[in-house]
């Protein structure tokens, strides 16, 4: 008598292929750089389609790893349901993300960081962008990405908040821009 054995016992499988929220294996780079103990490891902005609009890395990571992390972040965050919690676990990092219109702001933090403060920090950055561009939208950041970086560099330094006053940051960026324009006028050549 021939018996045909099933290949598997029927088990429940998750329907969507997802990046697991808790991953057992640690990426080697995290172990190599733990001595750095940087509180914030990276800040990424990406669209609903997963296109990267801004990336700031606060630890030295090889290019390939950067791409992989970005892919993982995008997959994980875009898979989240609308009214979910804004905090995730990924390897040994805490991921804090928030959606503003069509852009996701996502940062990776050390395990001891205060997630609520990170949310405030993301919000502050959005406010700064908004003040600068006036009702900022994704297109502003696409076409003026270097300005978005300049603003970020006045707000964060080495992964830490450098200035807690919105006014001061705005003034600094203005003054830098002014300096640039003055130089351009002097050279009679626009910057970009």
């Amino acid at each position, binding site marked *: 008598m021939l018996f045909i054995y099933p290949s598997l016992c*029927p088990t429940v499988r998750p329907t969507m292929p997802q990046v697991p929220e808790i991953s057992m294996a640690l990426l080697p780079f995290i172990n190599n750089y733990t001595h750095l103990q940087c509180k914030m490891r990276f800040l990424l902005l990406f669209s609903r389609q997963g296109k990267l609009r801004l990336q700031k890395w606060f630890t030295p990571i090889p290019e390939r790893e950067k791409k992989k992390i970005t892919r993982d972040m995008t997959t994980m965050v875009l898979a989240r349901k609308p009214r979910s919690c804004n905090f995730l676990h990924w390897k040994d990092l805490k991921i804090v993300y928030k959606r503003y219109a069509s852009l996701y702001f996502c940062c990776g933090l050390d395990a001891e960081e205060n997630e609520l403060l990170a949310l405030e920090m993301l919000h502050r950055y959005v406010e700064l962008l908004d003040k600068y561009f006036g009702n900022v939208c994704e297109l502003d950041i696409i076409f003026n990405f270097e300005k978005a970086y300049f603003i970020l560099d006045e707000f964060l330094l080495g992964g830490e908040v450098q*200035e807690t006053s919105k006014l001061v940051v705005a003034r600094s960026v203005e003054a830098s821009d002014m300096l640039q324009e003055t130089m351009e006028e002097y050279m009679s050549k626009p910057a970009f």
Partner: protein
Amino acid sequence: MSPSVRLQEMIRVIRGARTQGEERGVIQRECAAIRAQFRQADNGTRSHNLAKLLYVHMLGYPAHFGQMECVRLIASPRYNEKRVGYLGAMMLLDEKQDASLLITNSIKNDLSHSSQYVQSLALCTLGCMGSAEMCRDLAPEIDRLLRASNSYIKKKAALCAVHIVRKVPELGELFTPASRSLLSEKNHGVLHGAVVLITELCERNPETLEQFRKAVPELVQIMKGLVMSGYSPEHNVAGISDPFLQVRILRLLRILGRNNETASDAVNDLLAQVATNTDSSKTAGSAVLYETVLTVMDIKSESGLRVLAVNILGRFLLNNDRNIRYISMTSLQKIVQTDHNAVQRHRGTIVDCLKDQDASVKRRALELSLALVSAVNIRSLMKELLLFLSSCPPELRAHTTSGIFNAAERYAPSQRWHIDTILHVLTTAGGDVRDETVPNLIQLITTATELHCYTVHKLYRALIADISVQSLVQVACWCIGEYGDLLLRGECEETEPVQVAEDDVLDALETVLQSHMSSPATRGFALTATMKLSTRITHNVDRIRSIVSIYGSCIDVELQQRAVEYNALFKKYDHMRAAVLERMPVIDKSSPGHTNGESAGGSIKEMEPTKRTQEVALPQEPANQVCDLLDLLGGSGEPPQPSPALSTTALGPVSSTAGGDLLDLLGGLDVTPVPPSVIVYEKNGVTLKLQTDRQTDTGMTITLTATNSTDREITSLTLQAAVPKSVQLQMKAPSGDVIPAHGLGQVTQTVLLNNPNKVSLKMRVRVCYTSQDFVCQDTVQIDSFPSPAW
């Protein structure tokens, strides 16, 4: 066309590309143009070319050829070019690239530039991607800027110093003096940077930590000022004055107050003040409260403050904002071990969070609930957990089931409850339980002797309802095979008995055997159960015989082997069948599988290693038992070596090897082979046990074990042995001559016997000892030894 439009024009063109290939084409053209431009002399377009390259880089295309251009632009005297150059350096250069060293000199020059904005560029870049060598080179410059510059530069220098300390910890000493004086600054940006720097220094160097403990009063003052001050438009966020600074100061106070009474005392008042005065209706306030709670729990705070902190967390649990619920549970998880009772008060809310929609919140609630299980709340909490299991997301199921099993094992109020719980889990989520669940459950069932009837009825009902859950089916088959007579008897105290005929039972088992859903292991269970029933039923033995013979030609080798052997048991060894298939004794619970009785809140990470060792251990056992089975039927008539032998009867070893499924089951348990032993002398509270272990055809090792159940110890114990002439005897040294009282210890002595002529073995043992000041001497004759005689 003005150059600035050209960058934006390029972006527009790239975005307009309809396919990936088209985009690649555009980018390749642009990159070629940029490369050409780079090679040319300075024509004022360098900065905008680099900007274009940076955009291309962000899209994911290679841009390494722009690295030297960054270096050149940084060295340019023009601000706009420097700006883009530094941006490029931060994006394209990291410490791994050789080109990064080339900018060290430019940075050094720019740090002393007349324009603070140029200085700021240099500081920012150094703080972002500075390598260890660059940091060493430029540290003195940074220190200078920390002391003497305006607040705009000071705040950046402070954070740059933080980066340097992270890269080159030894340089921390360089910055310590300057950072101390920064605490008296009024500017929030500088203050924030100073606090971050001091935190970093203290975390890395215990001596610096000691030094900065003196700064605690100053920090408390600053913090008080922030909390009690009126509305400050510049730093206000939702009613909180500069939450970023407040959180950083609290964190520094935490580090300074850890393990230090004086420092902790100094901040007690402050923490209470912050906890009560901070409005937590918005995220900013909650962030400060959260940090306060963490600080309170970490330093040596007074108990009232700790209770306050736990209550804050409890309030967070009721907050509408999911984020706040999530972090409150994370914090509660950290303190559940130390402040168990305080957290228990919030158990109700935590259990409610199990029903939350969000997967992260659910996960946290689950871990916390498992950590809160105690003997007191086990019944009610288990109800909730089982309810959760029926609706929990798939990725949490395995964790939930193991957590439930751990909790049940530790706190089960009764055996029946325990069995019921495990059965419930198997019916709800049997596919997600660990492999050891089956043997563990079987072991549990055998120990609950009064519940055999109840258990087999319940399992039978479950089996006829659904045979898809393998673990449940395996246990059910085993029970039916073992206790089938109780099932057929049709009477049960604990539950409504089923009126079931022998045919029905055999039908059920056959369904399992034939079903395509059954795994090979499950089939094995079912076949063995069917076989066992042959001694427990009366009318349908022929049916069993036919089933067994059919499977003798089964394509699965394991099943085929079993069927063939059972067939032999029917035909050639029918006289042994009853003894072979008799009821199993209670299984000993000494298994490695019980390492999963760790803290119920253990994460999946911890479970994994034990699971893997289980899987490794399992395959070895069946191999042994199969060999034993072959020995049995090999016709040598020689019983196998005492491997898992659990009873002292002559057929002890045989009965445990006959049922292959028993041994699969025992594969999960680590049954230490216990050689048969018999008590040969019992008098005056002294018991002498004899254990045999046959090594070879003619040689035997006898172990004499003496124990003492009296109140006082037995001294001067000596044992002498005599055997028939042709037998050779060798006595080894005893382990001692004093037997501790109350059975707390024993004395063993090994005797080696060699019986080359295979005469009938007898032994005389003389026992001498002193008990309560009386000298006793006795002689014992041993005619039969526990192992099969020669």
